[in-house]
Protein backbone atom coordinates (compact mmCIF):
# COMPACT_ATOMS: atom_id res chain seq x y z
CA UNK A 1 0.00 0.00 0.00
CA UNK A 2 2.72 2.45 1.02
CA UNK A 3 4.75 1.68 -2.09
CA UNK A 4 1.76 2.51 -4.25
CA UNK A 5 1.17 5.76 -2.35
CA UNK A 6 4.82 6.76 -2.72
CA UNK A 7 4.78 6.10 -6.47
CA UNK A 8 1.55 8.03 -6.99
CA UNK A 9 2.66 10.93 -4.79
CA UNK A 10 5.94 11.10 -6.72
CA UNK A 11 3.91 11.54 -9.90
CA UNK A 12 2.02 14.41 -8.28
CA UNK A 13 -1.10 12.72 -6.94
CA UNK A 14 -2.16 14.98 -4.07
CA UNK A 15 -4.59 12.45 -2.56
CA UNK A 16 -1.88 9.83 -2.39
CA UNK A 17 0.45 12.36 -0.79
CA UNK A 18 -2.16 13.22 1.85
CA UNK A 19 -2.62 9.53 2.65
CA UNK A 20 1.16 9.15 2.88
CA UNK A 21 1.41 12.16 5.19
CA UNK A 22 -1.31 10.78 7.47
CA UNK A 23 0.42 7.41 7.50
CA UNK A 24 3.84 8.72 8.50
CA UNK A 25 3.35 12.08 10.27
CA UNK A 26 2.87 10.72 13.80
CA UNK A 27 5.90 8.45 13.47
CA UNK A 28 8.04 11.36 12.28
CA UNK A 29 6.64 13.60 15.00
CA UNK A 30 7.56 11.00 17.65
CA UNK A 31 11.17 11.08 16.42
CA UNK A 32 11.35 14.88 16.21
CA UNK A 33 9.74 15.33 19.61
CA UNK A 34 12.13 12.90 21.29
CA UNK A 35 15.17 14.64 19.81
CA UNK A 36 13.96 18.18 20.47
CA UNK A 37 11.88 17.61 23.65
CA UNK A 38 9.61 20.47 22.59
CA UNK A 39 6.24 20.20 20.85
CA UNK A 40 6.47 23.45 18.88
CA UNK A 41 9.95 22.82 17.54
CA UNK A 42 9.00 19.23 16.73
CA UNK A 43 6.06 20.59 14.73
CA UNK A 44 8.45 22.84 12.81
CA UNK A 45 10.81 19.95 12.11
CA UNK A 46 8.01 17.68 10.88
CA UNK A 47 6.47 20.38 8.71
CA UNK A 48 9.88 21.11 7.15
CA UNK A 49 10.38 17.37 6.61
CA UNK A 50 7.06 16.74 4.91
CA UNK A 51 7.47 19.80 2.66
CA UNK A 52 10.91 18.51 1.60
CA UNK A 53 9.40 15.09 0.96
CA UNK A 54 6.79 16.57 -1.38
CA UNK A 55 9.41 18.65 -3.20
CA UNK A 56 12.00 15.90 -3.59
CA UNK A 57 9.97 12.70 -3.78
CA UNK A 58 10.43 12.29 -7.57
CA UNK A 59 14.18 11.91 -6.97
CA UNK A 60 13.69 8.87 -4.72
CA UNK A 61 14.37 5.97 -7.07
CA UNK A 62 13.29 3.09 -4.81
CA UNK A 63 9.85 3.62 -3.22
CA UNK A 64 10.66 0.94 -0.64
CA UNK A 65 13.33 3.28 0.77
CA UNK A 66 10.68 5.86 1.70
CA UNK A 67 10.67 5.10 5.45
CA UNK A 68 14.46 5.24 5.72
CA UNK A 69 14.54 8.47 3.72
CA UNK A 70 11.80 10.12 5.78
CA UNK A 71 13.65 9.15 8.99
CA UNK A 72 16.83 10.65 7.53
CA UNK A 73 15.16 13.95 6.68
CA UNK A 74 13.34 14.34 9.99
CA UNK A 75 16.46 13.43 11.96
CA UNK A 76 18.62 15.93 10.08
CA UNK A 77 16.02 18.67 10.45
CA UNK A 78 15.57 17.99 14.16
CA UNK A 79 19.29 17.87 14.88
CA UNK A 80 19.87 21.06 12.88
CA UNK A 81 17.06 22.79 14.78
CA UNK A 82 18.43 21.60 18.12
CA UNK A 83 21.90 22.90 17.27
CA UNK A 84 20.65 26.20 15.89
CA UNK A 85 18.43 27.06 18.83
CA UNK A 86 20.72 26.32 21.73
CA UNK A 87 22.72 23.56 23.25
CA UNK A 88 19.87 22.06 25.27
CA UNK A 89 16.59 20.97 23.71
CA UNK A 90 13.73 22.93 25.19
CA UNK A 91 16.35 25.42 26.34
CA UNK A 92 15.12 26.36 29.78
CA UNK A 93 15.21 24.81 33.19
CA UNK A 94 14.13 21.23 33.69
CA UNK A 95 10.79 21.00 35.45
CA UNK A 96 10.79 18.72 38.43
CA UNK A 97 7.78 16.51 37.87
CA UNK A 98 7.40 15.38 41.49
CA UNK A 99 5.18 17.84 43.42
CA UNK A 100 6.84 19.44 46.45
CA UNK A 101 4.15 18.17 48.84
CA UNK A 102 4.15 14.61 47.52
CA UNK A 103 3.97 11.98 50.18
CA UNK A 104 6.51 9.44 48.97
CA UNK A 105 5.32 6.80 51.44
CA UNK A 106 1.84 6.56 49.91
CA UNK A 107 2.32 5.51 46.33
CA UNK A 108 5.93 4.46 46.02
CA UNK A 109 5.61 2.90 42.58
CA UNK A 110 3.92 5.87 40.97
CA UNK A 111 6.16 8.45 42.56
CA UNK A 112 9.20 6.31 41.95
CA UNK A 113 8.41 6.14 38.26
CA UNK A 114 7.87 9.90 38.10
CA UNK A 115 11.26 10.50 39.71
CA UNK A 116 12.80 7.95 37.37
CA UNK A 117 11.30 9.60 34.28
CA UNK A 118 12.47 12.98 35.55
CA UNK A 119 16.01 11.64 35.95
CA UNK A 120 16.09 10.16 32.44
CA UNK A 121 14.63 13.36 31.02
CA UNK A 122 17.40 15.40 32.61
CA UNK A 123 20.08 12.98 31.49
CA UNK A 124 18.74 12.89 27.94
CA UNK A 125 18.64 16.68 27.67
CA UNK A 126 22.32 16.83 28.56
CA UNK A 127 23.28 14.75 25.51
CA UNK A 128 24.43 16.27 22.22
CA UNK A 129 21.73 16.41 19.52
CA UNK A 130 23.54 13.76 17.44
CA UNK A 131 23.53 11.37 20.37
CA UNK A 132 19.87 12.08 21.11
CA UNK A 133 19.10 11.32 17.46
CA UNK A 134 20.91 7.98 17.52
CA UNK A 135 19.17 6.87 20.72
CA UNK A 136 15.79 7.98 19.38
CA UNK A 137 16.21 6.08 16.12
CA UNK A 138 17.18 3.02 18.13
CA UNK A 139 14.48 3.12 20.79
CA UNK A 140 11.57 4.93 19.10
CA UNK A 141 11.95 3.78 15.49
CA UNK A 142 13.32 0.41 16.63
CA UNK A 143 16.32 0.52 14.28
CA UNK A 144 19.47 -1.57 14.70
CA UNK A 145 22.97 -0.09 14.25
CA UNK A 146 23.22 -1.11 10.55
CA UNK A 147 19.75 0.33 9.91
CA UNK A 148 20.70 3.57 11.66
CA UNK A 149 23.83 3.70 9.49
CA UNK A 150 21.67 3.32 6.39
CA UNK A 151 19.22 6.00 7.53
CA UNK A 152 21.93 8.51 8.39
CA UNK A 153 24.18 7.61 5.47
CA UNK A 154 27.16 6.90 7.70
CA UNK A 155 29.42 3.83 7.97
CA UNK A 156 27.97 0.98 10.07
CA UNK A 157 30.95 1.12 12.44
CA UNK A 158 30.40 4.81 13.06
CA UNK A 159 26.71 4.22 13.81
CA UNK A 160 27.60 1.42 16.21
CA UNK A 161 30.17 3.50 18.07
CA UNK A 162 27.87 6.52 18.24
CA UNK A 163 25.06 4.36 19.67
CA UNK A 164 27.48 2.92 22.19
CA UNK A 165 28.78 6.35 23.24
CA UNK A 166 25.28 7.82 23.41
CA UNK A 167 24.07 4.98 25.64
CA UNK A 168 27.14 5.31 27.85
CA UNK A 169 26.64 9.07 28.06
CA UNK A 170 23.01 8.66 29.12
CA UNK A 171 23.97 6.03 31.71
CA UNK A 172 26.70 8.34 33.05
CA UNK A 173 24.22 11.21 33.27
CA UNK A 174 21.77 9.02 35.18
CA UNK A 175 24.50 7.81 37.56
CA UNK A 176 25.65 11.38 38.16
CA UNK A 177 22.08 12.41 38.86
CA UNK A 178 21.58 9.51 41.27
CA UNK A 179 24.80 10.39 43.11
CA UNK A 180 23.66 14.01 43.36
CA UNK A 181 20.30 12.93 44.82
CA UNK A 182 22.04 10.72 47.39
CA UNK A 183 24.39 13.54 48.42
CA UNK A 184 21.46 15.96 48.76
CA UNK A 185 19.52 13.49 50.90
CA UNK A 186 22.52 12.91 53.21
CA UNK A 187 23.19 16.60 53.68
CA UNK A 188 19.49 17.34 54.39
Amino acid at each position, binding site marked *: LQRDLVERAARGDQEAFEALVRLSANRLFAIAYRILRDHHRAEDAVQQTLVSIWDELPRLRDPDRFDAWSYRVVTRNSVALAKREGRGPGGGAIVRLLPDDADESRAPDDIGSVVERDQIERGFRRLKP*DHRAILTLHHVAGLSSPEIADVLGIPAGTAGSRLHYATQALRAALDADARLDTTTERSA
Partner: protein
Amino acid sequence: MTTFDETDRRIAAWFTDETVRVPERTIDAVLAHARAHPRRRDPLVSLRRDPMARPFSGGLFAPVPLLAAIGLIAVAVLGGAVVGGFLDGPAPTPGPVPTATPIATPSPSPSPRTLHVDLVEVAGEDASIDITDRSASLVDAESGQPADGGSVGGSGIELANDPVDPLVIVVTWTGTPCDTTHTLEISDDGRTMTLTRPRCEGDAIPRDLQLRLRFREAIESSALAATLVTE
Protein backbone atom coordinates in the same frame (compact mmCIF):
# COMPACT_ATOMS: atom_id res chain seq x y z
CA MET B 1 21.99 -1.16 43.38
CA THR B 2 20.86 -0.52 39.82
CA THR B 3 22.25 -2.96 37.29
CA PHE B 4 23.06 -2.19 33.67
CA ASP B 5 20.16 -4.32 32.44
CA GLU B 6 17.75 -2.50 34.70
CA THR B 7 19.04 0.87 33.55
CA ASP B 8 18.63 -0.19 29.92
CA ARG B 9 15.10 -1.33 30.63
CA ARG B 10 14.27 2.01 32.29
CA ILE B 11 15.73 3.93 29.36
CA ALA B 12 13.87 1.82 26.79
CA ALA B 13 10.60 2.23 28.71
CA TRP B 14 11.07 5.99 28.92
CA PHE B 15 11.39 6.23 25.16
CA THR B 16 8.19 4.34 24.43
CA ASP B 17 5.82 5.20 27.26
CA GLU B 18 4.71 8.55 25.87
CA THR B 19 2.38 8.82 22.90
CA VAL B 20 2.57 12.02 20.90
CA ARG B 21 0.41 13.06 17.97
CA VAL B 22 1.21 15.63 15.34
CA PRO B 23 -1.28 18.53 15.42
CA GLU B 24 -3.71 18.75 12.51
CA ARG B 25 -2.49 22.26 11.70
CA THR B 26 0.91 20.87 10.74
CA ILE B 27 -0.66 18.44 8.28
CA ASP B 28 -2.88 21.22 6.90
CA ALA B 29 0.17 23.44 6.31
CA VAL B 30 2.00 20.66 4.44
CA LEU B 31 -0.99 19.83 2.26
CA ALA B 32 -1.46 23.53 1.49
CA HIS B 33 2.17 23.65 0.34
CA ALA B 34 1.61 20.64 -1.92
CA ARG B 35 -1.51 22.22 -3.44
CA ALA B 36 0.34 25.51 -3.99
CA HIS B 37 3.26 23.69 -5.64
CA PRO B 38 1.76 21.07 -7.95
CA ARG B 39 4.22 18.64 -9.44
CA ARG B 40 5.63 19.70 -12.80
CA ARG B 41 7.11 17.27 -15.23
CA ASP B 42 10.87 17.25 -14.80
CA PRO B 43 12.63 15.73 -17.82
CA LEU B 44 15.94 15.65 -15.96
CA VAL B 45 14.65 13.83 -12.90
CA SER B 46 16.57 10.67 -13.74
CA LEU B 47 19.80 12.69 -13.76
CA ARG B 48 19.18 14.17 -10.34
CA ARG B 49 20.77 12.60 -7.33
CA ASP B 50 18.74 9.99 -5.48
CA PRO B 51 18.54 11.26 -1.88
CA MET B 52 19.16 7.72 -0.62
CA ALA B 53 21.95 6.89 -3.05
CA ARG B 54 24.93 5.28 -1.43
CA PRO B 55 28.27 6.89 -2.24
CA PHE B 56 30.29 4.89 -4.77
CA SER B 57 27.30 2.67 -5.60
CA GLY B 58 27.79 2.85 -9.32
CA GLY B 59 28.08 6.60 -9.73
CA LEU B 60 27.60 7.90 -13.24
CA PHE B 61 27.72 4.37 -14.54
CA ALA B 62 24.61 3.34 -12.63
CA PRO B 63 21.93 2.20 -15.11
CA VAL B 64 19.51 5.12 -14.88
CA PRO B 65 21.97 8.04 -15.16
CA LEU B 66 23.84 6.18 -17.88
CA LEU B 67 20.71 5.62 -19.97
CA ALA B 68 19.62 9.20 -19.42
CA ALA B 69 23.06 10.49 -20.45
CA ILE B 70 23.03 8.32 -23.59
CA GLY B 71 19.55 9.62 -24.39
CA LEU B 72 20.63 13.22 -24.02
CA ILE B 73 23.71 12.69 -26.17
CA ALA B 74 21.56 11.03 -28.86
CA VAL B 75 19.13 13.95 -28.83
CA ALA B 76 22.01 16.43 -29.06
CA VAL B 77 23.64 14.58 -31.98
CA LEU B 78 20.34 14.23 -33.82
CA GLY B 79 19.51 17.89 -33.23
CA GLY B 80 22.94 18.97 -34.47
CA ALA B 81 22.61 16.82 -37.56
CA VAL B 82 19.22 18.23 -38.47
CA VAL B 83 20.29 21.82 -37.93
CA GLY B 84 23.49 21.31 -39.89
CA GLY B 85 21.62 19.74 -42.82
CA PHE B 86 23.57 16.52 -42.34
CA LEU B 87 20.54 14.39 -43.13
CA ASP B 88 19.42 16.41 -46.16
CA GLY B 89 21.89 14.87 -48.59
CA PRO B 90 22.85 17.61 -51.10
CA ALA B 91 24.85 20.54 -49.94
CA PRO B 92 22.62 23.33 -48.71
CA THR B 93 22.23 26.43 -50.76
CA PRO B 94 23.64 29.53 -49.18
CA GLY B 95 21.04 31.30 -47.08
CA PRO B 96 20.68 34.96 -46.39
CA VAL B 97 23.58 36.71 -44.73
CA PRO B 98 23.00 36.48 -41.04
CA THR B 99 22.29 39.69 -39.29
CA ALA B 100 24.36 40.61 -36.31
CA THR B 101 22.86 39.34 -33.11
CA PRO B 102 22.49 41.90 -30.36
CA ILE B 103 25.22 41.75 -27.78
CA ALA B 104 23.88 41.11 -24.32
CA THR B 105 24.66 43.92 -21.95
CA PRO B 106 26.13 42.66 -18.72
CA SER B 107 23.54 42.64 -15.99
CA PRO B 108 24.53 44.18 -12.70
CA SER B 109 26.20 41.58 -10.49
CA PRO B 110 23.66 40.08 -8.09
CA SER B 111 23.98 40.65 -4.39
CA PRO B 112 25.77 37.74 -2.75
CA ARG B 113 23.60 34.96 -1.44
CA THR B 114 24.18 33.64 2.07
CA LEU B 115 23.45 30.23 3.45
CA HIS B 116 23.86 28.76 6.92
CA VAL B 117 24.65 25.07 7.30
CA ASP B 118 24.95 23.09 10.51
CA LEU B 119 27.75 20.62 10.03
CA VAL B 120 27.65 16.99 11.08
CA GLU B 121 30.57 16.18 13.34
CA VAL B 122 31.70 12.81 14.61
CA ALA B 123 33.22 14.25 17.78
CA GLY B 124 33.84 17.55 19.51
CA GLU B 125 31.97 20.85 19.50
CA ASP B 126 28.95 21.61 17.34
CA ALA B 127 30.12 23.22 14.11
CA SER B 128 28.43 25.35 11.48
CA ILE B 129 29.36 27.35 8.40
CA ASP B 130 28.04 30.55 6.84
CA ILE B 131 28.42 30.59 3.06
CA THR B 132 28.58 33.73 0.94
CA ASP B 133 28.14 33.02 -2.76
CA ARG B 134 29.15 35.94 -5.01
CA SER B 135 28.85 33.90 -8.20
CA ALA B 136 25.10 33.16 -8.05
CA SER B 137 25.96 29.65 -9.22
CA LEU B 138 25.34 27.85 -5.93
CA VAL B 139 21.93 26.20 -5.64
CA ASP B 140 22.11 24.81 -2.13
CA ALA B 141 24.45 23.33 0.44
CA GLU B 142 24.28 20.68 3.11
CA SER B 143 26.60 18.96 5.48
CA GLY B 144 28.40 15.84 4.35
CA GLN B 145 29.02 12.86 6.60
CA PRO B 146 32.68 12.96 7.62
CA ALA B 147 34.48 9.83 8.71
CA ASP B 148 36.19 9.58 12.09
CA GLY B 149 39.50 11.41 12.50
CA GLY B 150 41.32 13.71 10.08
CA SER B 151 41.96 12.68 6.49
CA VAL B 152 43.14 15.80 4.66
CA GLY B 153 46.83 16.52 4.59
CA GLY B 154 48.76 19.32 2.87
CA SER B 155 46.64 22.45 2.64
CA GLY B 156 44.06 20.89 4.94
CA ILE B 157 41.22 21.30 2.44
CA GLU B 158 40.15 19.05 -0.41
CA LEU B 159 37.61 19.41 -3.22
CA ALA B 160 36.11 16.43 -5.00
CA ASN B 161 33.30 15.71 -7.40
CA ASP B 162 30.45 13.70 -5.94
CA PRO B 163 30.68 10.30 -7.66
CA VAL B 164 26.91 10.19 -8.12
CA ASP B 165 25.85 13.77 -8.73
CA PRO B 166 27.95 15.84 -11.18
CA LEU B 167 26.41 19.04 -9.86
CA VAL B 168 27.82 18.50 -6.38
CA ILE B 169 31.27 19.41 -5.12
CA VAL B 170 32.28 17.84 -1.82
CA VAL B 171 34.51 20.03 0.35
CA THR B 172 36.38 18.24 3.13
CA TRP B 173 38.71 19.89 5.58
CA THR B 174 40.51 18.80 8.69
CA GLY B 175 40.27 20.86 11.85
CA THR B 176 40.12 20.18 15.53
CA PRO B 177 37.22 19.24 17.81
CA CYS B 178 36.96 22.78 19.18
CA ASP B 179 36.41 24.44 15.77
CA THR B 180 32.91 25.87 15.83
CA THR B 181 31.89 28.66 13.43
CA HIS B 182 33.26 28.74 9.88
CA THR B 183 32.73 30.90 6.81
CA LEU B 184 33.06 30.07 3.14
CA GLU B 185 33.26 32.66 0.40
CA ILE B 186 32.74 31.75 -3.25
CA SER B 187 34.25 34.33 -5.61
CA ASP B 188 32.42 36.18 -8.43
CA ASP B 189 33.59 33.73 -11.07
CA GLY B 190 32.65 30.74 -8.93
CA ARG B 191 36.15 29.29 -9.23
CA THR B 192 37.78 30.28 -5.95
CA MET B 193 36.67 29.36 -2.46
CA THR B 194 38.06 30.67 0.80
CA LEU B 195 37.13 28.77 3.92
CA THR B 196 37.86 30.45 7.23
CA ARG B 197 37.90 28.53 10.48
CA PRO B 198 38.40 29.80 14.02
CA ARG B 199 41.78 29.56 15.68
CA CYS B 200 41.27 26.90 18.28
CA GLU B 201 43.90 26.33 20.93
CA GLY B 202 42.23 23.34 22.55
CA ASP B 203 42.28 19.69 21.70
CA ALA B 204 44.75 18.95 18.90
CA ILE B 205 43.10 15.70 17.75
CA PRO B 206 42.28 16.12 14.04
CA ARG B 207 38.64 16.09 13.03
CA ASP B 208 37.16 16.16 9.52
CA LEU B 209 34.22 18.32 8.53
CA GLN B 210 32.49 18.08 5.20
CA LEU B 211 30.26 20.27 3.07
CA ARG B 212 28.31 19.38 -0.08
CA LEU B 213 27.81 22.28 -2.49
CA ARG B 214 25.27 21.90 -5.29
CA PHE B 215 25.84 24.16 -8.31
CA ARG B 216 23.59 25.04 -11.23
CA GLU B 217 25.92 23.35 -13.70
CA ALA B 218 28.29 20.43 -13.53
CA ILE B 219 31.75 21.56 -12.57
CA GLU B 220 35.10 19.78 -12.37
CA SER B 221 36.69 19.96 -8.94
CA SER B 222 40.10 20.36 -10.63
CA ALA B 223 38.89 23.66 -12.10
CA LEU B 224 38.33 25.06 -8.61
CA ALA B 225 40.79 26.42 -6.07
CA ALA B 226 40.21 26.37 -2.34
CA THR B 227 42.14 27.96 0.49
CA LEU B 228 41.79 27.23 4.18
CA VAL B 229 42.42 30.23 6.41
CA THR B 230 42.73 30.09 10.18
CA GLU B 231 41.73 33.31 11.91
